[in-house]
């Protein structure tokens, strides 16, 4: 045994160690990514009608599909609504509970708890909140003397309701990364700034915030991915409605693929999602590159 392992080449050992994980990764990540592209160029096989090559027909159909454009637009709005808000809140939370504060342990717990809950449970709780007339949101609004409103059932507010739920769920998660980064900033810096007479806001703007840049980038990438990856709340709260007003891209893929069973069209839609995610990866790479040069 000893003799053999000493002489076996690192190439063989390396690949043998990697093999089990590689097999699963290829089967469930690389193959499906490539197969998505391939199948998006065929028609959907139906009973008695096998799939045939249709070239870019699915993409042409997509370009002419108003629901697709609506879902894409919704997803962009959803990302714009959730990402800056949850990141700003996360940073604020981290700054607040990083200092000395009465009830700090409770506050950290309160901010972080939504992270542990399943999105589906969160969505159920908020569904109750948004119930017209009876839910907490409506009762609060009535308290202010405003009329009752069907929050999830109205085209103007359905997407915003999803944004609120997502921000509530994610801010505490992002907070802990900021908190970790804040704790790694040397206290000497703050002391030096205080001696120089720098105000706290000035110190934050010129020292803390720049030092948090890598964390901000990390959180940003995660937030962007999440805004395209997570649609559990759409399934529970609105099912994309009313009139697709709250349909997100992945939700539309789910609808097309598993309700209408149009797998070829769903594959074409998935390609759009893959392109979005790949752009995020490339963007991250470029940003990361710049950061290293900056240093």
């Amino acid at each position: 045994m000893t003799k053999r392992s000493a002489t076996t080449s690192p190439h063989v050992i390396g690949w043998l160690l990697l093999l089990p994980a590689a097999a699963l990764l290829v089967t469930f990540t690389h193959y499906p990514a490539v197969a998505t592209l391939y199948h998006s160029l065929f028609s959907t096989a139906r009973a008695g009608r096998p799939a045939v090559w249709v070239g870019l027909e699915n993409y042409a159909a997509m370009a002419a599909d108003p629901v697709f454009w609506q879902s894409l637009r919704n997803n962009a709005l959803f990302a714009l609504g959730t990402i800056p808000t949850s990141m700003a809140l996360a940073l604020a939370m981290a700054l607040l509970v990083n200092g000395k504060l009465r009830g700090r342990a409770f506050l950290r717990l309160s901010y972080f708890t939504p992270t542990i809950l399943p999105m589906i449970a969160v969505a159920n709780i908020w569904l109750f909140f948004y119930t017209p007339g009876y839910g907490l949101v409506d009762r609060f609004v009535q308290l202010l003397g405003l009329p009752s409103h069907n929050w999830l059932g109205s085209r103007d507010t359905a997407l915003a309701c999803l944004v609120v739920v997502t921000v509530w769920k994610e801010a505490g998660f992002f907070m802990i990364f900021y908190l970790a980064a804040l704790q790694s900033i040397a206290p000497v810096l703050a002391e030096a700034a205080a001696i120089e007479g720098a105000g706290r806001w000035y110190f934050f703007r010129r020292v803390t915030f720049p030092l948090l840049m890598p964390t901000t980038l990390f959180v940003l990438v995660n937030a962007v991915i999440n805004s395209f990856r997570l649609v559990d709340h759409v399934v529970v709260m609105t099912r994309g409605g009313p009139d697709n007003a709250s349909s997100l891209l992945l939700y539309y893929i789910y609808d097309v693929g598993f309700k209408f069973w149009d797998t070829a069209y769903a594959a074409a839609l998935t390609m759009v999602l893959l392109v979005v995610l790949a752009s995020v990866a490339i963007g991250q790479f470029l940003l990361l590159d710049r950061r290293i040069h900056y240093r």
Partner: protein
Amino acid sequence: MTRASETLAAWLLGLLWILPLAYAGWTAFHPREYSARFVLTAPLTLGNFVEAWNAAPFARYLLNTVLLVALILGVQLVLCTLAAYAFARFEFAGRTAAFLLVLVQLMIMPDVLIVENYQTMSRLGALDTILAIGLPYMASAFGIFLLRQTFKTVPKELDEAARVEGAGPLLTLWKVYVPLARPVYVAYALVSVSYHWNNFLWPLIVTNSVTSRPLTVGLQVFSSTDQGVDWSIITAATLLTSGPLLVAFLLFQRQFVQSFMRAGIR
């Protein structure tokens, strides 16, 4: 901002953040007629939980979730350890390319490849099984990456000392690397368990019977079809499904938060 106003802001935010959960708790632990009426004298009850528990096979769903989470974590730990060891300590041909291919999964997660993975499961005849829910997640790029970073920090001398004693690669991995990476394993395990306990869309797609559905899907089936709009029971069921994880979190708060942190800062 003064310290006092900061404290005030922190508390307002904190109360706002805990409010949804507190409200769900109120509704679940009080009789129906108090579900949206806040009277301090309202009687407490566990009746909603009993009703929810009896109205759907939650015991089975719970068992499925526990099996699912354990299966995924068990396989992940083995596969990721082996792969991470290969990347960290063996100079094999194509290592860089292979590593980049692994990292692809950090961006393109199984969560978005639902259409093709469903076809694969169908061809494998694995639809509607716990295995099918877990398979796409078992080779975790995140786990491989995390462990690789950790293994790289293990001093080479320790590795060589074990080799001199006559240990082969696997024994060295087991005796030297795995024990030193224990905190990382704990962190990864907590993140993985939370993720898969809470995962919903993929399990919803591949399962369609009581014998394979995890809690999240069971809850959705329950609250959307069986129950109408009895909020007391739905919130009770909701707390029931998140309960075990929530209790574990409250007990091991520090551990959880540190794990999520450790997992994030790679």
